[in-house]
């Protein structure tokens, strides 16, 4: 057996823009789908109980407020409890404190509260993910957080080799 340098693991490194954007796209899709399902379930329930049909208008202030509250709950609760949303778990990234320690629940909630600020000025707040040295967006800087890779690339590489070895017929 020969010594070879270990395959680089990115675990703990600052996560890049593509991973973060993909995670957010998944979260937006999932949270919007769950919200739409919830509205449909409410409509169905009201119809069963009262016999009246309820239709939801997307531009209705009630729906907009409910959607914003739901989004805040979805992101805020996920970050406060585990430091990651469903999309972030899928992409293997996690929110931590700026110094790298585990996120405090309060910081998770603050991050969710200031998150919309990054959308202001044509989304300039997100530019930090690209150009800031620690890939921190405006809401990260305000909440004192950072996003890191939390999956083990080394383990994934070994799993890949294992699958290859299983597929290769023995000599």
């Amino acid at each position, binding site marked *: 057996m020969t010594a070879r340098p270990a395959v680089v693991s990115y675990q703990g490194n600052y996560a890049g823009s593509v991973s973060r954007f993909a995670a957010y796209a998944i979260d937006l899709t999932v949270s919007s789908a769950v919200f739409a399902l919830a509205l449909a379930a409410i409509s169905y329930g009201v119809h069963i109980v009262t016999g009246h049909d309820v239709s939801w208008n997307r531009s209705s202030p009630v729906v907009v407020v409910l959607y914003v509250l739901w989004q805040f709950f979805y992101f805020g609760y996920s970050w406060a409890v585990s430091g990651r949303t469903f999309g972030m778990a899928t992409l293997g990234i996690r929110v931590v404190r700026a110094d790298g320690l585990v996120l405090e629940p309060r910081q998770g909630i603050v991050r969710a509260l200031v998150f919309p600020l990054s959308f202001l000025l044509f989304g300039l707040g997100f530019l930090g993910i690209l150009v800031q040295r620690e890939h921190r967006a405006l809401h990260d800087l305000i909440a004192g957080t950072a996003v890191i890779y939390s999956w083990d690339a080394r383990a994934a590489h070994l799993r890949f*080799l*294992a699958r290859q070895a299983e597929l290769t017929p023995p000599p």
Partner: protein
Amino acid sequence: MEAIAQQVTERVVDLLVSALDVNELAARIDLNALLDRVDINRILKQVDLNALLDQVDVNAVLAQVDLKPLLDRVDVNDLVSQVDMDALVERTDLGAVIARSSGGMGTEALDALRSQAVGLDQFVDRWVQRLLRRKEPAPLAPPALLPAQAQP
């Protein structure tokens, strides 16, 4: 007459040997000079090592070896660090064990998705650094996570 001479000679030799200090005599012998004159290779050529080893009870020898102090001197971490895990997984049944025990299609898809995303992250980051003409490398991880990383 001859018998008498024989008896006298034997008696003299006995007296001489008993009077000699053999240890002192041995101490005067230069063993190194003596061994220099011995052709050890020639002797070894004549020795049938296989036959010699056949007579050795290796189990009995090993039973007398105290392995603990021997193992205490072995740096296991250094030993393990020299193991090429990639080759081990590729060439042994260990790969199949890992593949069976570490999930199926879901894990495979996640590994692929995450690897692709990391590759694109790095590609984008390289171009941004180039456009911004940054020469100093950016920190790879938050301070608390840097020492925990085997490789940055």
